[in-house]
């Protein structure tokens, strides 16, 4: 299936480990994770695809957040 797609230049969008990109990903939620840089994709729920420079379907992902928000500066 994947190889048929790539013959037609349909390419799976990289997601896990990448910074969240609102032009090709759709966020489903956040997950607290201090071992990973905030705003990094930690889970791909639905794979996204691109054909040439057109997004056929955005990847649906979960994004890391730090356990504590930085303190506010007043």
């Amino acid at each position, binding site marked *: 299936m994947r190889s048929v797609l790539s013959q037609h230049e349909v390419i799976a969008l990289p997601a896990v480990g990448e*910074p969240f990109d*609102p032009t090709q990903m759709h*966020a*489903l939620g*956040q997950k607290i994770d201090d071992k990973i840089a905030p705003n990094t994709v930690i889970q791909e729920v639905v794979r996204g695809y691109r054909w040439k420079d057109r997004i056929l379907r*955005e990847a649906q992902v*979960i994004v890391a957040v730090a356990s504590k928000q930085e303190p506010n500066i007043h």
Partner: protein
Amino acid sequence: MGIVVGIDLGTTNSLIATLDDGQPWVIPDDEGDLLLPSYVGMSDSNQLLVGQSAMRQYAAAPERTVKSIKRQMGTDYSVTLGDRTYSPQEISAILLKSLKQRAESVLAEEITQAVITVPAYFTDAQRQATKEAGEIAGFEVLQILNEPTAAALVFDVRAEEPENVLVYDLGGGTFDVSIVEIAGDVTEVLASHGNNRLGGDDFDRQLQRHLADRFSQAHDGTLVPTDAATQARLLQAAEQAKMALSDHAFTTVREPFLVSEGDAALHLEAEIAREDFENLIKPLLKDTLEAIDRALADADMTAEDLDRVVLVGGSTRIPLVQQLVESHLPGVPVSSFEVDLCVGLGAALQAGVLAGEAVSSILVDVTPHSLGIAAVMDTPMGRMPDMFSAIIPRNTVIPTSRSQVYHTSYDYQEAVEIEVYQGENAIARENVPLGSFRVEELPPKPGGSLQIEVHFDFDLNGILTVTATEKGQGKKNSLAVNDTETRRLSSHDLNQARAAIDSLFEAMPFSLEDLEADLAGESADSEEE
């Protein structure tokens, strides 16, 4: 005179429309999308995001994404994005500016004059804030127009006779009903009621809960986990199923690998009947009918005083919504056209009127006769065979798909005969036959227990496809009728034509049979698959 535009600045979606030869059309973005999600955000790298991209990041970064700003208009709410705080006017101006740019790039011309719509219940402060938003975005705001008035104008710009129109608007997150009086160029909202926390989002959540229950039933009580990803999948599946049920009597929801339990993966697979969904949302819809009564009382009117009902908002695509409104206001013609674009189209018409352009109401293709099948029906005289059961009512805007579920009428019934007719007579045979077909080899079951879904699909070329499916084993058959009559009319002409024809028939009842015989002669060839 430059180009003028109309803008529907919505809670969930916004759009911009303009006129071509007096007819309104919605300007798409470069992806071809007509609706701009009403979201504004700042990306991780401090880039402004508007519309789709801001909506996509919402769940990842709610602290730097703004949605539903319309609910804050006219308040002193402020929101911080990046290193600056913004007023509701400023956030709305970002949406308006993005729509302005979209229009300027498609039309290759600078655009300054706009009509912007607001709900009828908006206060002066909320209207003023909306006007300011337009000015910040670089528009000269020709008028702040009430949304229901805009919708009514799509059907009756410049009606000669004064008309009372009830506009029923059920969107994603808000509901309102208004009574608008249109007399020539003068329009007035006589009454308005609603609930700004009721809409399609609530229906999605009801169905999401129902799907979770169905999952548990199928998997020995295993609960669906409450984590964001699983719940988001379930909610999306619910919205898709909801939309499918607007066109079909049944739909199947499939979410493979919804839950993994140890090594085993559990799938969600459930068939949802339209009736199940209707039972979930009926209580919410009852409230909307009460709002209709309150609006009528406030305007000192009864249903008889209404000339028309206009349905607006994506959620009015749900057949039950149409049915409940129709039966709550018997005898009042119900119109709808592009329910999610209608307000913006009307705003563009009004902008044209203000700029002195010649404008005209929308032309729509409609079914001039009701289309349906012969069925056994319960009547005050008992069960009667060969009654006409209309599936697509006359004057429905095409293309359209509708379906209805019927039951077998006696024990061990082996076949059903689907006889298709067009017309308005309660006795099927008194209407024009369009063809018939059978579904055979039905599984043996007691009468009334076997369900047959009959689906009518009427496309823009006037081709009617009728499909009947037996629900148990999926036996089906279908029939295509070519050259079914269609008619192109403005809704205003439609009412006049209807009145003219009705009076013609009253004057010459004896000619009815001849007329029907003629129509039957023209009626289409049919073929069985």
